[in-house]
Each structure stands twice: as structure tokens, then as C-alpha cells.
């Protein structure tokens, strides 16, 4: 066997408190399509960031060999120079510039200090032919569909002298025709000798296109499968992806018969005018009193959009459908309406839209329900401190005092502050979006225990999570979301990891 084009040896990358990659090894042979699969958080993106120099040499341990030579990237420019091109899920094109300007952006064809536009337009045309895209090179990017934009990105990558093309979930935002078209193109490029690494959650597509597949789980390489030896099948992939046993980190709780329906949505559709596409289609879902309903789905499947659209729709989607709270039709026009009706939403991105990092613990806890501790608009600071201290004790928030800035707390304690904030509004329904992302096992256990206590007291919980073990370990009932649709609803007794994964990658 000849030298592999890429070899990553014993890569370990640590973040404070977490080992994102643990001794990962990864080989890609020349001229193949190599797929990289794994659950969210398995380490795929981190591995690609190491490869592309986002995490420069010295911030990880292990070696990267490209064509047999050891690489030491100081930044993205170095890896690009060496011939590694990455195309991310969020496209990096400039909407207001033309196709040809984008293709040669940062790599302009020059005549001294000037850009040689004639040559640029000519070469751009050649690149577009290569990716089989028929558009006017002078069209603006914003006037193209997502599928075509993706092809422009690939043309841009090909315009440089690349050794390795990496695509991070290229089909996540594409419809079926565009996806098929893209996969076809990748096969064509492979036949011309381009090596390609493809990260994908869509197992069907992985099986269809790959020459080999590497599975990552919990920051480790599980195995590399060879498609030409018939090793790649859906069941094999799922087995390796979810392989871990569900350990006893989930506190047991009796699955009681739940009470009346608290929230119901029917025929729920949402269109995002910003993205220009429908993000939720015909969603029907209900939650009953005293139950934990899991919503499983991969990143980008529409889970968070579902929560946002229910919680007063702050992102301005165009929504069609019915929402009933305790049997009464409701239309929440802003988060405040949802809060008043008894809904609380702990967001996925606690630093981005959950907490006010520059404020202290007590100010964050009382923020959503300030009028409860105010008289005629004046805050009773004694009451505020008392309430914050109560939550500090009952949720075991580790902080020197409630006057500590939340930016100084650890992830788990920040999450407890978020939870306190929403418990203080005394909701009937608590929506938790990735409630344990990026927090340590101890704090996870505390949060799970708290969830059990809350449902025992009669609260209802929707738990959105991409961690399958967590969904299966905590829920009474599971909905599976994929591409903006509910692709399945399973009682917990029937929900096996394989079944859920199959529906989620549907």
C-alpha cells in the first residue's frame, strides 16, 4: 500500500476539564472518499479543526502527516497553503460579491498590484465547469440557492492546488436533488484524483458514497471500515456509533401514568424568512402533566427551532399551526406571552442567549420574574438576595456568593443558574435544550435528579438532546426529529438506540 495522503497519529486535544480527542489516529488513502461519522460531541469537528490549523501546532499532542511529511500549522493559512481545504456547514461566501470574485477571494489573480479581471473571469468559468455548475460567473452569491452556493465553495477550493478536500455536513441544508447532485460530483472529483473527507450524519449517504468510514465516539477512534470489503452497513455503523452501554448515571424513576395534556401543537409549520426555507413541517406533539418527553435529533434537525417557535417565536419565523396550552388555544407573540402562560425555556447556548455573563448570580436568577420581587417597579434587594440564596442552596450552585459574576462560574454551575432563573418563574412546562452539554458528570447527575423531582411535583418537561443515552435514560416518551419533521414517536420501553438513530438519520 502506498503512503496515505493523510495520517493523523495519536492526536490528543484537551479543553479545560474535557478531553475532546483522546489518542485519535486517522488515515486517509490517496484518491478515496473517506467518511467520518459519530454522534454530536464525538470529536469530528475538533479533529478537523486540528487538521486545518484552527487549533495550531502545540495546542494538541500527536503528529499530522500530509503525503508523508510532518505538518506544523500555525494557523489556517498554513494548512490552506499545504493544500487542505475545508468547506464548513455555514458557507463562507460573501453574499454581495459575484461568483468569480468569491472563487478567487484571497487568492486573486494579479497583474502587479491590480487584479486581472479578464483572467479571473475566464478561470472562474473553468472552475464552474469542473463542478458542473451552470451559472453566470457575474451573478451575485445571494441570488443563488444553497445547493449552488455549495458548489461555488467547492469551485473555490478547487481553484487552489489542493491535496485534500474536507466537507463538513455538506448536505445538511440541501434538498434531495441537490444532495444527489453533490454526491455525484464528489464521485466525479474522486475519479479525477481528488481525495475527499466527508463528515455526515446521513448514514444512507455515507453508505452510498464512501470508500472507507472512520467512526469516532467520545473522542476516540472506534474503527475504520472498508466499503470495498463490505464492512459498511447501516447496522454496523449504528452499532459502532452508539456502542457504549448506558451506564447508571441516570437516576431511576418510576414511569408513572402521566396526567392531562399540558401542551399540544398540531400541524405546526415554520418558515425561516432569513434562511428562505421551511424549517418545521407538520409537527404534531403533546406533553402531559408529570412526564419527561425527550426530543431526539441530530444537530440541524429542527429541534431548537421547534423550541424557539413554541416559546414566543423571538426569531420571527412565519408559523402556521395550532398551539394549545392546557386545552386552550394560544398564540404567543413574544417570549413574555409564553412565560405568562407557564412555559419556560432553558436554551441550548447558555453563554450566547441564556445568561448575562457580565451580571452576577442573583441578577441572572431573578431576571425573568423581577416583578415578583418588586413593589411599584422598585426591586426589593433583600428579597432578591434571599431568593437567590435559596436556589444556591437547593440546586447546590458552587459560588462564593450570589454577588459573583456568572462568567466566573464553571459550566455546570452556570447551567444551574439558568435552571434557577426558569424555576423562579414557576412554570408548568419546562423546555430544556441540551441541558447537560459541556458540563461534568457530577453536575449532570444533579440536573437529572432535579428533573425527576420536578416531574414528581407535577411539572412537565420537554428535553431536547442530541445525546442518545441521555434521552433514553431520562424520558418517559421520545419524539424523533429529522429534517424538520417528527419521524417517530416511541414510548420509552420501545425506544432502543438503534431504532432512534435510524429514525434520526432518516
Amino acid at each position, binding site marked *: 500500500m502506498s503512503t496515505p495522503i493523510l495520517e493523523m497519529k495519536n492526536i490528543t486535544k484537551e479543553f479545560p476539564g474535557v478531553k475532546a480527542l483522546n489518542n485519535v489516529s486517522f488515515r486517509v488513502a490517496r484518491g478515496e472518499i473517506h467518511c467520518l461519522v459519530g454522534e454530536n460531541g464525538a470529536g469530528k469537528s475538533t479533529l478537523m479543526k486540528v487538521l486545518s490549523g484552527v487549533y495550531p501546532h502545540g495546542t494538541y499532542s500527536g503528529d499530522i502527516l500530509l503525503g508523508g511529511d510532518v505538518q506544523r500549522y500555525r494557523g489556517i493559512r498554513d494548512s490552506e497553503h499545504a493544500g487542505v481545504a475545508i468547506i464548513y456547514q455555514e458557507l463562507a461566501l460573501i453574499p454581495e460579491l459575484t461568483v468569480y470574485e468569491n472563487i478567487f477571494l484571497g487568492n486573486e489573480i494579479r497583474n502587479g498590484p491590480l487584479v486581472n479581471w479578464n483572467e479571473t473571469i475566464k478561470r472562474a468559468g473553468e472552475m464552474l465547469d469542473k463542478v458542473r455548475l451552470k451559472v453566470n460567473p457575474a451573478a451575485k452569491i445571494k441570488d443563488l440557492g444553497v445547493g449552488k452556493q455549495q458548489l461555488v465553495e467547492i469551485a473555490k477550493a478547487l481553484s487552489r492546488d489542493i491535496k485534500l478536500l474536507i466537507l463538513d455536513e455538506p448536505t445538511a441544508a440541501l434538498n434531495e436533488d441537490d444532495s444527489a447532485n453533490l454526491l455525484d460530483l464528489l464521485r466525479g472529483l474522486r475519479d479525477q484524483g481528488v481525495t475527499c473527507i466527508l463528515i455526515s450524519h446521513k448514514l444512507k449517504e455515507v453508505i452510498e458514497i464512501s470508500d472507507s468510514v472512520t467512526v469516532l465516539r467520545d473522542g476516540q477512534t472506534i474503527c475504520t471500515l472498508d466499503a470495498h470489503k463490505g464492512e459498511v452497513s447501516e447496522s454496523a455503523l449504528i452499532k459502532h456509533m452508539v456502542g457504549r452501554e448506558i451506564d447508571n448515571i441516570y437516576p431511576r424513576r418510576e414511569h408513572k401514568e402521566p396526567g392531562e395534556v399540558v401542551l399540544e401543537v398540531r400541524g405546526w409549520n415554520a418558515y425561516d424568512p432569513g434562511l428562505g426555507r421551511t424549517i418545521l413541517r407538520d409537527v404534531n406533539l403533546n406533553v402531559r402533566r408529570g412526564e419527561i418527553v425527550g426530543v431526539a435529533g441530530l444537530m440541524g434537525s429542527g429541534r431548537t427551532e421547534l423550541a424557539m417557535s413554541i416559546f414566543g417565536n*423571538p426569531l420571527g419565523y412565519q408559523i402556521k399551526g395550532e398551539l394549545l396550552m392546557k386545552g386552550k388555544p394560544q398564540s404567543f407573540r413574544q417570549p413574555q406571552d409564553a412565560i405568562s402562560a407557564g412555559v419556560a425555556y432553558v436554551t441550548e447556548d447558555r453563554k*450566547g*442567549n441564556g*445568561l*448575562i455573563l457580565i*451580571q452576577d448570580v442573583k441578577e441572572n436568577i431573578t431576571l425573568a420574574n423581577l*416583578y415578583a420581587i418588586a413593589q411599584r417597579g422598585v426591586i426589593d*434587594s433583600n428579597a432578591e438576595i434571599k431568593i437567590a440564596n435559596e436556589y444556591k442552596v437547593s440546586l447546590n450552585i458552587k459560588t462564593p*456568593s450570589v454577588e459573583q459574576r456568572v462568567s466566573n462560574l464553571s459550566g455546570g454551575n452556570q447551567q444551574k443558574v439558568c435552571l434557577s432563573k426558569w424555576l423562579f418563574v414557576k412554570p408548568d412546562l419546562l423546555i430544556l435544550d441540551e441541558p447537560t452539554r459541556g458540563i461534568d458528570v457530577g453536575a449532570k447527575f444533579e440536573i437529572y435528579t432535579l428533573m425527576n423531582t420536578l416531574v414528581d411535583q407535577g411539572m412537565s418537561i420537554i428535553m431536547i438532546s442530541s445525546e442518545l443515552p441521555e434521552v433514553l435514560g431520562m424520558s418517559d416518551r421520545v419524539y424523533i426529529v429529522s429534517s424538520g419533521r417528527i419521524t417517530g414517536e416511541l414510548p420509552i420501553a420501545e425506544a432502543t438506540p438503534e431504532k432512534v438513530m435510524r429514525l434520526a438519520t432518516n
Partner: protein
Amino acid sequence: MFFQNLQKVLRQNIREYGMYIALFVIMLIFAITTKGTFVSARNLSNLLNQTGYIAVLAVGMTLVIVVRHIDLSVGFLAGFIGAIAAIALKSLGWPVFLVIPMVLVLGAIAGLITALPVAQLGIPSFVASLAGWLIFRGLLQLATAGTGTIIIADTAFTAIGDGFIPDIPIKILPNMHFLTLLVGVVAIVLFVMSEISRRQKQEAYSFEVLPKDIFVLKLVFISALVGAITWVLSSYNGISWTVVIMLAVTGIYHFITTQTVLGRHIYAVGGNPDAAELSGISVKRIIYVVFGSMGMLSALSGILFAARLKSATTTAGTLFELDAIAAAYVGGVSAAGGVGRVTGSIIGALVMTSLTSGMNLMNVDISYQYIVRGAVLASAVIFDVATRRASK
């Protein structure tokens, strides 16, 4: 031990105390270079009156910057409102007690109009208020087109800009304004009492408090400062109405920002608008409130300026917005949002007017004055960013 404590507290709170120290140093330098003229009763009294119309703008601008916006239109809005007030008093002959509330409401409405495209369409406030800058400048010129400068004869109105509070007829100390002294003493007593009760409360909740000796030093220092200022003022004409208004605005806004739900919502929107919206706060509403208050304070600034000049002129309000923005930044407001106190901005305004007044006394050429003020603004912001980074 004491000096170690002092050093530690100063280092930890350098950002908060920095501007007080800067103000003190600036005043000291001018006191020396002008051989005492700068700290004379007459000049200090004048300085405070000059600060008034910028200070009220700086208070409003603090909140605007806290919610991550800017309002460039406030200067000419102040000028325009001043002209409206002059016309109402002179040509229409309306009484003062009617004119003042009317123009304050008018200012608030103007602020809401500036906020409209910002809140509804997400237009950058820089652009929306730049449009306002042009429009209000045009309106000011229209309002003063007929007569040019409009002289205001109404003494009740002009007293706001150059009058002093009356004295009570008790003469214990000769040649001293007794009521001013009394106000000073009451202020000191209230300040000391509130600080002690606050400290007791914080101790009860086992929050971090200043070491006792430093706490006493702080009380003594601030009491001495307030005492000194009132002493100097009362040896001249006492407290002016401008200072009364400035203190009242500062007090009200300080209370709103630190004690009320509205204040908390404003700072939450500044700290993280997405989190605030998802916590049930209407970001739009907060933008309207903040710009509305800015408009009202612009009107107040216009009243103070017109009263001080006893007239409305075609150029009234020129560059006020930049002085107000500079004052807010010198006072520790952060452009990243969510951080800044109204009391800081008042100090910032005092720093900026002290520079002008001191350099005028020194007969420094106006060109150099601009350069010095620019350098002070830049150093203040650099200092702020540097200390913020160090404290992370």
C-alpha cells in the same frame, strides 16, 4: 497593614476610582498652573453651571450606550428645543410653568421618533440619529430664521441657567450662604448613614466588603470632598438652580438604574439582548424608553443652555453630542454594552468641562484645547479597556 489594604482596594477597583483620581489630578494641575484661580469660589461655581447642560445629556447618553446604541442628534435637538422654548415664551407669551413641561414632552417625542426605525427595522442608531442631527439642525435654523438670535427676557426662565437658590434668613456665619451649607451637611449625614446601613446588610449576607479602615477612609474622603465643595460654593452665591437640576437628574437616574425593574431590564438588554428577549423582556420597548428619555434630557439640556445664554441662537447645541459621548466614555461606560453608571458619566462631564475651563484660564489656544481633550478621551478609553482585560 492599612497601606497594604489601600493598595489592594485601589488595584481591585482601579477602573471605578480611576476617574475620580483623574478628576482630582486635573483639578490639582489647574489649581497650580492658574495660581489658585481655578479653584476659586467664582470659578468652581461657574464650572458646575457650565457642566450642567452637558451632564444631563451624558446621563441620558449613558443609558443609550449601555443598550449598545448611540444618539448623535441630541446636540441640535437641544438647540432646537431651546429655540422652541424661546419662541413660546417670547412670541406666544406662554408662562414658564407651561413651557417647560411642554418642551420636555416635545423632546421625548423627538427621541421616540429617532428610535422608531432603530426598534422597528433594526436600522443602526448611528445612521438614524445622524439623520436626526441633520433634521434638527435644519429645524433650529428655521426656528431662528426670522429674527436670528431670540432674546429671552423672562427672568424666571433665565434663573434656571444663572440663578442661585435663595438663602434662609439665619446668619450664623457672616458672608456665607447658609442654606447651601445646610444642604451640604444633610447630604453628608445621609451619605454616611446609607453607606453604613448598606455595609451592615452586605455583612449580614456575608458578601465581600471593604476592609474597615478603608471603608472609614472612603467615608471621610467623600464627606470632606462634599464639605469642601459646599463650603466654597456657600462663600460665593451658594448652589445654583443648574446644580440642583443636575443633582436631581443624577439622583433620579441613579435610582432608576440601580433600584428598579426598568433599570435592571435596561442593563440586561445591554448585557445580552438575546438572553434578555428570551427572558421575556421586550428589547424594542427598552429601546423606545431609552431614546425617549434621551430626547427628554436633550430638551432639558436645551432649556439649561438657553437660560444660561438668555437667548436661543442659530448655533446652539453644536458639538454637544460629542461632549456628552466623551463624558460617558470617560465616565466608564463600555461600548460593548451593559456596563456604565450615571454617576460615572457626571464625573466624566466634570472632567471634560474642567479641561475646557482650566485651559481657558491658562489662555491655551483653542486648537490645542481640542487636541488635549481628544488625548484625554483616548487615554480614558484605553485605560478602561486595559483594566477590564486585566480583571478578566
